[in-house]
């Protein structure tokens, strides 16, 4: 059977179970779009290609499937770079299809030509330029395979216009075989025996879980392990939801804006079991001082994550789900004695840290941003709610004051820290989960970085809710200036902003505003229960800071507190 490149692309989309695309057409992909229109694949027309990639990212995280984004050559392709880099840092499985100028023009500085494969080499798991129509089907299947297997990540496929139009024989798919790509899923059992021994001997163990637990869908195994061995759990920002926020063993988030008890625990523990993390500098602070008293076990599917930043006692390369499954079986067979008795002192110490230094803020005349998140949590805790965030203070307050019970319900640009991520990611999540309540927690700065996606949300009837914590500042940078730059507020004031209520209305959405603490709940109720797309503008205290805070490069236990 002879098919065109565009038809082969659609065939592979169907083979791979792709039912939704986020994209933006252009000259180099017009043949692909022409073919797409003949399929029943749903296409969400974003308003900027960056938004398209973030939406695919949000879709992937909310659905557990590979997110797909389709854009044209040149500027269409370069606009995807931030989204790709964010997905790469957070190991999110997405496939980005870019159009390219016809093969005979490549290298000639043709109209809308850019070497996107060259540009995205360092920020993709892998990428391809298709130069021969006969390679197209294989490359596309490899792209999906690579994106979702091992440590997931973004894969880009650059398809020249003439390849989309050329024809080739199409064969049914066979299993993808890549001799140079063999992720290690099964851990070394010998290493696991050593881990179990450490668990048995530890007096003050703790678990530090990350995004890898969520990506490998091993939150149930993690919870079982922690409860069985009675080990308190902290997570990175990316790991929020990997362990129930209501569990007594929950320590809160670790790191620069982590809880007092989580950060203090790392310096007091004698065994740190790190699972699916990469020890980002925002988590470790000064690396020499991080968990300096402790033996460290590090479980991760990517060997490069192990011993990259932190020396470890026992490295375990393997899939988190498989590894935790083995650990649970091994622990089962073990006599851990009276765990209540053994852990009492350690858990009492942690409880004391919690009661002396809980997450806290002071109420005032003006709306406190933390109060908005607390109310948001109260009003949505019984509904299936997905929280996305922008980046900065809004992201940290959402991480601190919203409590996540399940994985896949907190979607944030963790590694790259992309302002403008939350709204398009919410659109992607809402597309994947039409029955969920999807809320983007935003700041007045970041929301303006991809505000144009409001039109996308309204066009497709996606009822995402945007909660703007509006402090008229680039708040996180302002906070750094206040704390470390002697209050010199260089270029962080955003006095002039659009009227977000009118802006929402201009987009055909609902706009609401609260200016006093007593208005917060009513606005949230009205906004969250609306069937439409809504922006809620909360005029919050302008100079509120996120606490605790560990100054960059300081030991994680040296926190500035409220």
């Amino acid at each position, binding site marked *: 059977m002879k098919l065109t490149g565009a038809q082969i692309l659609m065939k592979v989309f169907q083979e791979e179970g792709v039912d939704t695309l986020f994209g933006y057409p252009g000259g180099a992909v017009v043949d692909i779009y022409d073919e797409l229109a003949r399929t029943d694949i749903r296409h969400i027309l974003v308003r900027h290609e960056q938004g398209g990639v973030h939406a695919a990212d949000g879709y992937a995280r909310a659905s557990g499937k590979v997110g797909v984004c389709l854009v044209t050559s040149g500027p269409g392709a370069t606009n995807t770079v931030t989204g790709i880099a964010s997905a790469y840092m957070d190991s999110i499985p997405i496939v980005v299809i870019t159009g390219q100028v016809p093969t005979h023009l490549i290298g000639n500085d043709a109209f809308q030509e850019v070497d996107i*494969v*060259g540009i995205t080499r360092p920020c993709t798991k*892998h990428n391809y330029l298709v130069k021969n129509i006969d390679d197209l089907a294989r490359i596309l299947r490899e792209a999906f395979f690579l994106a979702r297997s091992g440590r997931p990540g973004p894969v880009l496929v650059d398809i020249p216009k003439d390849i989309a139009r050329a024809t080739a024989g199409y064969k049914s798919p066979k299993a993808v075989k890549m001799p*140079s790509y063999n992720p290690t899923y099964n851990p070394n059992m010998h290493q696991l025996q050593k881990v179990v021994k450490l668990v048995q001997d530890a007096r003050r163990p703790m678990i530090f879980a990350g995004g890898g637990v969520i990506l490998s869908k091993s939150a149930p195994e993690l919870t079982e392990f922690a409860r069985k061995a009675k080990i308190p759990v902290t997570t990175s920002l990316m790991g929020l939801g990997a362990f129930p926020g209501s569990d007594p063993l929950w320590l809160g988030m670790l790191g620069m804006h982590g809880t007092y008890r989580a950060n203090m625990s790392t310096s007091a523990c004698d065994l740190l079991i790190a699972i699916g993390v990469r020890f980002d500098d925002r988590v470790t602070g000064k690396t020499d001082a991080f968990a300096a008293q402790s033996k460290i076990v590090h479980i991760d599917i990517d060997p490069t994550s192990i011993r990259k930043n932190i020396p470890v006692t026992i490295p375990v390369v393997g899939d988190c789900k498989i590894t935790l499954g083995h650990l649970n079986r091994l622990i089962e067979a073990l006599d851990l004695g009276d765990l209540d008795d053994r852990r009492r002192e350690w858990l009492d110490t942690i409880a004391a840290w919690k009661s002396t230094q809980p997450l806290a803020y002071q109420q005032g005349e003006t709306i406190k941003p933390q109060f908005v998140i607390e109310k948001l949590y109260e009003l949505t805790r019984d509904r299936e709610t997905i929280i996305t965030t922008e980046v900065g203070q809004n992201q940290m307050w959402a991480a601190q004051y919203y409590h996540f019970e399940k994985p896949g319900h907190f979607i944030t640009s963790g590694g790259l820290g992309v302002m403008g991520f939350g709204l398009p990611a919410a659109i992607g999540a809402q597309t994947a989960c039409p029955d969920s309540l999807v809320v983007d927690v935003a700041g007045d700065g970041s929301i303006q970085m991809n505000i144009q996606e409001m039109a996308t949300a309204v066009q497709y009837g996606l009822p995402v809710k945007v909660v703007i914590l509006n402090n008229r500042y680039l708040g996180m940078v302002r906070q750094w200036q206040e704390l470390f730059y002697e209050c010199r507020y260089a270029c962080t004031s955003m006095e002039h902003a659009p009227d977000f209520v009118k802006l929402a209305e201009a987009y055909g959405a609902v706009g609401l505003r609260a200016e006093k603490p007593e208005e917060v709940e009513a606005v949230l109720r009205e906004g969250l229960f609306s069937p439409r797309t809504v922006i809620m503008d909360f005029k919050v205290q302008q100079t509120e800071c996120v606490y605790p805070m560990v100054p960059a490069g300081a030991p994680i236990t040296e926190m500035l507190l409220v």
Partner: protein
Amino acid sequence: MTEENHVLSLLVDNEPGVLSRIVGLFSGRGFNIESLCVAETTEPGISRITIVTKANAPVVEQIKKQLNKLINILKVYELTGQDFVQREMALIKVTAKPEHRAEILRIVDIFRCKVVDVGQEHYTIEVTGDQGKLAAIISLLKPLGIKEIAKTGIIALFREPK
């Protein structure tokens, strides 16, 4: 921790962009490349790349892991610390004044090199050996005036058990 030279030997898919991925990895992550050699093997579609990098032990460990992670890399071997042979070739264009010609040829003879190009004013010498030998001949020829030099960088293979 001390930084030392490590010889890495990679088998890679012979595809466009593979070298760029490797070089990009080194520059992007701040690793050093002391020398780099690429050529096809006898197996179609597979090339061997020999890289010499200067790094301390944990960094070399990280370099090897990062290289292994690249999709087009089939195998990463570290030769340093094991039994292996290494060779480098240099072409040295040395000023050859009449009064120095005999001495240059003596050096060529002692080092078992070849003169591959001769002119009124120069000899071009081809020399092959390990880095010590190359350094030695270069230091002997330097006072006579080296006009230009081109080196291949190291290539290396494991020794087989005898």
